[in-house]
């Protein structure tokens, strides 16, 4: 791999041992990818603060300098961690203070995370604590080279915003935050951003549910491909397209898609493919829509719902307001809980706007920072959960060993109020 004079200077320790370790990791990683060179990044979204047993041990041995060195730089020694070299934010992590007494989550994990927030905050990491940094202050511009983790955020940044990031990990984002570098590979390169698969939509896709079903079917069909989606599509809003990308990055490994006329690198279908023919054409019709719905519902047999989860990826203000409207004047069934996960910054707006009071009056909760899958935590005794998120329906049954129902937001709210799942595909 070609290193610039500046890359070598960082690698050789001119900016201290932590930066040298970061550059060593980036060189090993770049060579593993067969990247020609590194590129400059000025926007990093990673994770340091999420508690884990290994992190607790490392912190006990040598503080957060040690945990960051071992995990975020893949180093062997405890190195003093300097301020971040480029703007960096913390993604979603464990439950925070607002969940204590509501969520059955270990208080020592909350304390460990508080400690981590103080450590990274002092080094210039903005603690957005959400899987949707693009909703709350980290909105990269088109063409901006980024180093982001979180598959649903990566696909949003690449596709909806036209920013450029691969699906990074904890060590590569840690190293990028101290150097402003990342391997120039994959989604950073013009020729790796053109469409590979043509998805022809032949059934109307208009609702939040439809966009999730479409994403789940597309991810399954194209896996790591770059789909170009055309056909019977209504103009999606932020909430719809957030659901679509997260679903496609769950059933498959989609990091970049194009919707001609909607997403920025696809003014036309032809541009989206860069003049090359698609590798494959995939049809999404009524049968594929039904199959996606059935697959998302194949983990549910009992219709007695104990728990409803909304806001995966973290809810937009529209989603919180819609949930409040659906819950207004109603009351959750005994023994059923409803959580809406949101970025803390938007939870503040929801509270200020009165949405949270309506949700809480019905017995629901707006919670921040995390989700049941990230924290491996649901209400005590949960056996069956319902969600309007294809991603959460995909992951949570395996993570918590519970049954799942997937449907519309209205069906989920109905399940929370009645304690029964009565959803069906319409």
């Amino acid at each position: 791999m070609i290193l610039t004079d500046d890359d070598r200077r960082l690698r050789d320790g001119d900016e201290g041992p932590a930066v040298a370790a970061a550059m060593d990791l980036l060189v090993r990683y770049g060579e593993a990818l067969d990247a020609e060179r590194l590129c400059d990044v000025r926007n990093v979204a990673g994770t340091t603060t999420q508690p884990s047993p290994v992190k607790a041990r490392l912190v006990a041995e040598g503080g957060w300098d040690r945990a960051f060195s071992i995990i975020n730089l893949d180093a062997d020694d405890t190195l003093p961690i300097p301020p971040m070299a480029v703007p960096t934010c913390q993604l979603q992590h464990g439950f925070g203070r607002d969940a204590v007494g509501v969520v059955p989550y270990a208080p020592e994990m909350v304390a460990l995370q508080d400690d981590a927030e103080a450590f990274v905050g002092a080094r210039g990491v903005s603690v957005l604590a959400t899987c949707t940094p693009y909703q709350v202050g980290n909105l990269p511009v088109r063409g901006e080279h980024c180093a982001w983790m979180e598959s649903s955020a990566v696909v949003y940044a690449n596709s909806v915003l036209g920013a450029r990031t691969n699906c990074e990990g904890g060590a590569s984002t840690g190293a990028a935050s101290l150097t402003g570098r990342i391997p120039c590979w994959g989604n950073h390169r013009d020729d790796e951003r053109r469409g590979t698969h043509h998805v022809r939509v032949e059934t109307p896709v208009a609702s939040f549910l439809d966009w999730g079903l479409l994403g789940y079917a597309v991810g399954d069909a194209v896996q790591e491909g770059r789909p170009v989606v055309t056909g019977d599509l209504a103009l999606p809003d932020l909430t719809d397209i957030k659901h679509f990308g997260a679903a496609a990055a769950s059933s498959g490994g989609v990091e970049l898609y194009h919707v001609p006329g909607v997403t920025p690198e696809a003014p036309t279908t032809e541009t989206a493919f860069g003049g090359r023919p698609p590798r494959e054409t995939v049809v999404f019709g009524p049968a594929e829509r039904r199959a996606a719905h059935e697959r998302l519902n194949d983990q549910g047999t009992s219709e007695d719902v104990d728990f409803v989860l909304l806001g995966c990826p973290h809810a937009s203000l529209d989603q919180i307001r819609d949930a409040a409207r659906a819950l207004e004047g109603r009351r959750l069934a005994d023994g059923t809980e409803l959580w809406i996960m949101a970025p803390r910054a938007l939870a503040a707006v929801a509270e200020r706007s009165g949405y949270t009071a309506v949700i809480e009056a019905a017995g629901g909760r707006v919670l921040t920072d995390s989700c049941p899958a990230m924290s491996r935590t649901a209400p005590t005794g949960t056996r069956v959960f319902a969600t309007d998120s294809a991603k959460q329906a995909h992951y949570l049954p395996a993570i918590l060993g519970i049954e799942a129902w997937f449907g519309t937001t209205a069906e989920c709210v109905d399940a929370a109020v009645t304690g029964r799942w009565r959803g069906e595909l319409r």
Partner: protein
Amino acid sequence: MTDLRQPATGSRVVLRGRTVVPGVVTGEALVSPETISGWGGIDPATGTIIEARHPLAGVCFTGKILVFPGAKGSSGWSGFFQTTRLLGTAPIGMVFAVTTTKAALGAVVTRVPALADLDADPVAVLRTGDRIRLDATAGVVELLDRADPTDRTDTTDTTDTAAGEDR
């Protein structure tokens, strides 16, 4: 040096690929027919695949050379495999068909010899229980002994790196 343990086919089985992480290791292959998830897919504490619908659910990869099509799922992939190294439950080598950032970074932070983008599909050619020599520095993986339920006496020997070199 004569090696009497020829592959069942009687001919050499050698795959060539691209170095992901250099290094040489000999050991038993664990072949996953499907892609592997990190987050929600493995338990680093036990070095076990835990994804319920995965064909290797419940199988331990610790001390094995993991042969798999590629990485899927969350961006936590590399962190989960890094944790297997920190907890002593890691595989001793990786051979995968398709390079992604998840798998490449995962191999780097697991710090085991790793090879990708091979000239034949490693998942189709190799079988669980095969004794293989992975020379990721040279970009070669070689079958030493075909897995055979009636002849599995030496599959636990992971120290002999010379066997089969002068066939």
